[in-house]
Every structure is written in structure tokens, then in C-alpha cells.
């Protein structure tokens, strides 16, 4: 098991390295000019050149890359070219918003998706068909559209939730829940549908296995069979789906944050790409890659723990 974990860890690190390196050179090749982006249209050519020098953009690309990588390894992600703030500070101050949304969305999706999926699987016929339609709809609705509708109905019309803004948990736990509920619902609708669909199919296929039939014939209570045998065997695929949904929620947060006027890292990403703020884009990318690798790693290890066969693969 230890060897398995080590192997997965190494693979993850290698992947992160390749992605970050590729992105760095890609950004350089696209001709993005953080100096012009930061100074704006009024800056003279001389001012832009001076800024390029200040940012070190006039040095060879490889030198820039190794500097960035060296700094990143020591925890320094540089300074934003468009804002007077360090990249780590910018990401860390905005992170609570996005993490609240993504984690909240995945938890809700796991819970509701599981319930809906199981419900659909154990109630074939009309209820299953109805739930299927709901699931497909949930999957098809773009989350920005859902966000707009939710804001209009539950914030503007009914006034149940604040229309915009984020209340930090430590300032007001209730305010925090109020401020993230609608964005989380908007983000999780698609995930709920995806997980429900996955669970439904797995549960149905597990139910059709011979050993379940054997258990039933022995007169074991249905609830026991469902909770201890069926769900346990049906959940690994859902675990993969859940990890994918977490990553999707991180990226979907950009749009949803905008609709609810939340300043998470999604909002930072939009601003940074507009102004060619390479340091910030790279910082966000590094963060995202680490999260993706970490989530995959955790899923792999859980898989390995659940199923020894995976460890050999």
C-alpha cells in the first residue's frame, strides 16, 4: 500500500509539473504583455518598456521560468502586475469564498445525489422515470442561468437570501450560510444530477448481481442489504464522479461568483486574464493543479483501500 501511495504521489507531482511548465510557456507564446495590461492604453512605448524591465519580462524565457519555479517552490508566487499585492495574498484572501462554494456544492451534491439516485433505483417505474427527467434537466441547465433565476426569485422577489456579497463565517455563521446558499445551489444542480444518475445505475446493476439475490433469499432486511451491501459496492464509481464534480465546481465558481457579486478566486481569474496578469494566472493555475492532483490522489488511495486489485494495476 505504501508503494502504491508513493507511486501515485510521484505521478501527481509529475503531472503538476508538466501542466504548470506547459502553461508558463504557452502564456509567453501567446504574446500576452503584462506590462501593457497593467499600465493601460495611455502608457507610452517607453513606459511599457520600463515596466517590462521592472517585471523582468525582457529576460530570456527560460530564465524567467526557472526564477518563477524556484520562487514557487519556496512558496513565493510573485507580485501581481496589475494590482499592488502579492499573488499569494490575493489568492489566500479570496480562497475562503471559492472553497466554501466548491466544498458546499460537492457536499450537497453527494448528499442529494445519493438520495435521489437510490430512490430512483429502488423505485423502478414511474418514480424512476420522473426522477430521470429531473436529473437530465438538472444536468442540462447551465449553472450561470440557474444562478440568475435563483437570484431573481429567492433574493430579489422573495428576499429570503441576500442578493450579493459574502459574509465570512467567523463574522456571522448565519450570514455566511445565507450568503453562500444560492450560489451553492446554482453550482450543485448539475452535480446532483450527475451523481444521482451514477448512483442509480450502479445500484441497479449491483441489485442484479447474484450475491444480492442470495442475500435476499436468506431473508435479510431490505434496508440492511441496501446500506451495507449494495451502496458499498455501488459507491466507488460515484466517488470518481464526485471528484470530477469538485473540480467542475471550482471552475464553475467563476461565473456564479460574478452573478452573486462574490469576490472569490473566480473573480480574480477573470480580472487577471483581462489584464494579462501572468503572475496571478500562474498562481491560480498552480493552486488549481495542486487541488486537482490532491483530489485525484485521495480518490486513488480510497479506491486502493476499497479494492486491493487497484493497487497492483
Amino acid at each position, binding site marked *: 500500500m505504501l508503494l502504491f501511495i508513493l507511486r501515485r504521489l510521484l505521478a501527481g507531482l509529475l503531472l503538476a509539473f508538466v501542466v504548470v511548465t506547459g502553461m508558463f510557456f504557452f502564456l509567453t507564446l501567446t504574446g500576452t504583455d503584462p506590462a501593457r495590461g497593467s499600465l493601460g492604453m495611455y502608457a507610452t512605448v517607453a513606459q511599457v518598456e520600463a515596466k517590462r524591465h521592472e517585471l523582468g519580462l525582457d529576460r530570456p524565457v527560460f530564465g524567467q521560468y526557472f526564477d518563477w519555479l524556484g520562487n514557487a517552490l519556496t512558496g513565493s508566487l510573485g507580485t501581481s502586475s496589475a494590482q499592488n*499585492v502579492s499573488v499569494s495574498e490575493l489568492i489566500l484572501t479570496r480562497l475562503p469564498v471559492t472553497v466554501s462554494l466548491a466544498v458546499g456544492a460537492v457536499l*450537497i451534491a453527494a448528499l442529494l445525489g445519493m438520495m435521489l439516485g437510490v*430512490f430512483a433505483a429502488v423505485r423502478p417505474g414511474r418514480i424512476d422515470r420522473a426522477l430521470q427527467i429531473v436529473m437530465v434537466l438538472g444536468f442540462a441547465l447551465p449553472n450561470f442561468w440557474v444562478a440568475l433565476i435563483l437570484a431573481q426569485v*429567492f433574493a430579489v422577489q422573495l428576499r429570503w437570501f441576500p442578493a*450579493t456579497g459574502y459574509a465570512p463565517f467567523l463574522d456571522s455563521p448565519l450570514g455566511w450560510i445565507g450568503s453562500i446558499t444560492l450560489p451553492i445551489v446554482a453550482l450543485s444542480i448539475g452535480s446532483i444530477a450527475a451523481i444521482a444518475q451514477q448512483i442509480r445505475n450502479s445500484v441497479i446493476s449491483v441489485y442484479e448481481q447474484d450475491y444480492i439475490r442470495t442475500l435476499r433469499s436468506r431473508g435479510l432486511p431490505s434496508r440492511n442489504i441496501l446500506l451495507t451491501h449494495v451502496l458499498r459496492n455501488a459507491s466507488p464509481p460515484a466517488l470518481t464522479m464526485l471528484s470530477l464534480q469538485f473540480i467542475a465546481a471550482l471552475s464553475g465558481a467563476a461565473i456564479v461568483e460574478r452573478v452573486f457579486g462574490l469576490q472569490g478566486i473566480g473573480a480574480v481569474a477573470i480580472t487577471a486574464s*483581462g489584464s494579462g496578469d501572468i503572475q496571478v494566472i500562474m498562481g491560480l493555475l498552480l493552486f488549481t493543479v495542486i487541488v486537482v492532483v490532491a483530489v485525484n490522489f485521495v480518490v486513488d488511495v480510497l479506491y486502493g483501500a476499497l479494492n486491493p486489485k487497484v493497487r497492483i494495476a
Partner: protein
Amino acid sequence: MRKTYGVIAAIAATALALTGCGASQPTSGTSTDTLTMSNSGDITSWDPSAMKEGSIIQYAEAMYDPLLKKSADGSIEGNLATKWSYNSDLTELTLTLRDGIKFADGTAFDADAVKANLEDRKKGAGSASETAKAISKVDTLSPTEVKIDLAAPAPGLLAALATYAGFMASPKAIAAGTIGKTPVGSGPYTLDTKTVAGTSYVFNKKPEYWDKDSYPFSTVVIKPMPDFTAAYNALSTGQTEFMYATADMADQAKAAGLTVQTVPGEWQGIILQDRAGTLVPALKDERVRQAINIALDRKAILDGFFHGYGQVSTQTFNPASQAWVSELNDKYPYDVAKAKKLLADAGYADGFTLPVVYSSGFQEPLIPILQQYLAAVGITLKPVLAGSFANGGLKVYNDSAAYILSFSTNIPAWTDVLNKLTPTSLWNGLGYSDPTVQKYLDEIPKAQGDGQAKLYQELNTYIVDKAWFAPIATLQNVYISSSKIKVTMEQAQLVPSLRFFAPAGK
């Protein structure tokens, strides 16, 4: 099995209760002492030399006093400088400064501070740098008197000193290089520690401020919100009291009992930049440029695309500026046959292809509309998408034959002249010049009052005759506010200055 559902139902009920219980708290925490508004921009640097015009002026005004200030109609009044005078050939401006003003760090505001600020503005790349170029030297005559030497008369200077060029920051903070991160000014407010950059900026009024009657709110909160829908939702639920809006929100806002106000803003249309015909030879002929003007049904585009919020226009100056000539708007009525004839006379009976640069976003839907009108007279509009400035967009515009962009209109009109009519103007990328225009550009700065207005109007008339541009409309900027506050509209500024906000009762 039944029990399973019971468990599931209980979990669901808990989840619903959890997500729903934070709901019914009041969303509006505002009082007449606090003004909360959204702003479509965020302040990325507190250094007035780095600030780029637009809606961020409200953040700057909370921290910095300008040397002069603008009244609602665009005329200039004293502020930190109480008096000002030009010499006879308008190349020296002498300012008398208010005594006894201190910056937040205790540094005294005096002639040296003015000199340090103006010299810093010249070095910066913000929107103040354009006007600051005209300043050749700043001399301190006494602690309360400063003389600004100009290389040539600069008609836009006084107005510039009422905004970014004139925002006075502590010379100590400028010298220390910390001004971008930590604002140190003499303005009416201090930045509260409750401020969360990018989310909510909280400003508290200084009790000892010298002009405190001009700022009735004891607290001002500005929330950056780039998304107009989010800003509108915040306003309509009482989270904010003011926003800069889009025209399509006006009817909905009125129906919801909110106050809608407008002020003439940007002009929309096409800049026919290649008047020398180096890239698209057809554009060299003024009949072709006039044909483009006549081919556009401005009224239909204004009503259909811009929701009627504006006036059709053939000119590119602000309606409240000295250069405006109302009659010019009747110059190019929509006439397909006449446009075709002009094109035929110019030798383009079979039409030609016109590449037009545009940026993604709200200009995108305008492209097919323009394409259709131009196609009707035989011109093929070829859309060329420009990236952001960071991705070479500025160069794409500057190297193009024609482009559409939203253009600010200003008081004084000289700012518009500098923006687009001189051979070195940013929006005259191919550096086109014309002896007649140059004559006006030389004469206008030397003139004053009615004489200057007459020259501006002649210049405007000439530009419209020669069809340097194909304007469609001068739009109204739309602002929405709650009934709790009263906002006086300010001409030729994207958002009104903080001084123009007051509680509804006052």
C-alpha cells in the same frame, strides 16, 4: 424499507433547514448616515498617477482632494487651490493654495506638495499623464503659490486639475513609493479597517475635514461589482443605494419604484481612421466616408439596439461642450439611394470590403446590424476581433482602417481633441492630419471664451463634413438610485462625484 425513507427524509429536512434558516434576516443595513453603492470598477492602485479614468474616481475622491473641482455642469471651481490665473499667452498658470491643510500622515499641503504631485503625474501612465505632458515645469513661488509652465496653451488643464491630475497625495508617501498600496491624502474620508479589497471599501468621514458640509454621509461604502445584474439585484434588495446601469434596466427599475436619471455620455459609432486610404484606398475619398454615414439608419439602431437611451448624432463631442452644434445632427439622414450614388461617383459602384475592428462583449451584437446596413449600399463589412490591450488589442486598433468603440465625450472639448484629432492622438493610430484641422488645433488653445467656442464649432463642422467618423448616437448614461438618496447628475463624468450625493431629505 420504509425506515430508509424516513432517514432520507430526515436528512433532507435537515439540509433544507440548514440552507434555509439563514434566510430571513434583513438584507438592508443602511441608514441615512451611510451611503452604499456598487461600482463597476475596482481600484487596483491608490496612486493617482497610475489611475485610469472611469468609475473608479469615486474611490479616489474619498481619499484625495483635487486642486480644483468641477460643478455639476462641468464648470471649474476652486478647491485646494482657491484662485488661479493665466498669463496673457496662456502658457503660465498660477495657483493660490488653501492654507492649513494637512495630509493624513501629518505632512503639510503646500506648493512643494503640488510640485511633487504634478511631476509624479508626468511620470505615471494613468489617464492624468496625457494632460500632464503639457506641463513643462512647476515652480514654487511661496508656500501657498505655485506656477505651472506650459510648453503650449493647454485648454484641458483646469479640468484635469479637477480630477486625476489634480488629486493631491502626500509627497512623503509618493517619495516612499508606498502610495499605490496605502493611500495618504487630505480627502474627506479615511479608509476603515473593515475594508476588504475587491469586495467592500469602507470610508469614514474625518470630523475635522475643512469642507465637511459638502459630504453629508458619515460613512461611504463602495462595492466593486463588474456584473450589472448583480449590481441591480443588490440595489433592488436594498443592499446598495446607487449604481451605474445599462439602458435596458431603466424600465424595470422605474417599475420597481427606483429613481432613474440620465446624463449624456459616450458616443457610439465607427472611427474611419484610414482617411489617407493607405489600408483601404476607398476611405481616402470623403464621398465614400459620407456614404457610410448616410447608409446607417441611426434612429432605428438607437431604438432597436440602444433601447432609445440617447440621441442620434453625427458628431463626436459632448452635447454640453463648447464644440456641439445641434444642426449637424441633420447632416446625414438615412438614404440608401444617395449613399449608392456617392459610392458610384467615387468609383466604387461595385462596393468594397471594409475591415472593422471590434472588441468582444456588448459591441459584438452591433456588428451584424452594421453589416446589414453597409451591405445594402454595397460595402462588405469584415469584422476583426481585437483582444485585450494586454494581448496586443491596442496595436490592432491603431493599425486598422476602421473600428467601433465606445468613446467618452468630455468637457472641455479639448480632451476629445487630444483623444482623437491630433496626429499623435491615441485614437488616430495612423496619424492622419489635415491642414484645416491643424489650423484649428493651433488656434483653439490660444483663444478663450466665445471666440474659442466658435473655433471649436467650426472644427466640429469641418470634421462632420469630411466624415472623419461615422457616429450613430450619443448615448445617455443611466443611473439608478434608491429613494433614500438624492443624486445630482454631473456632466461628462462616468459616475457623479461623491459631493453630488445626499440623503433624500436634504
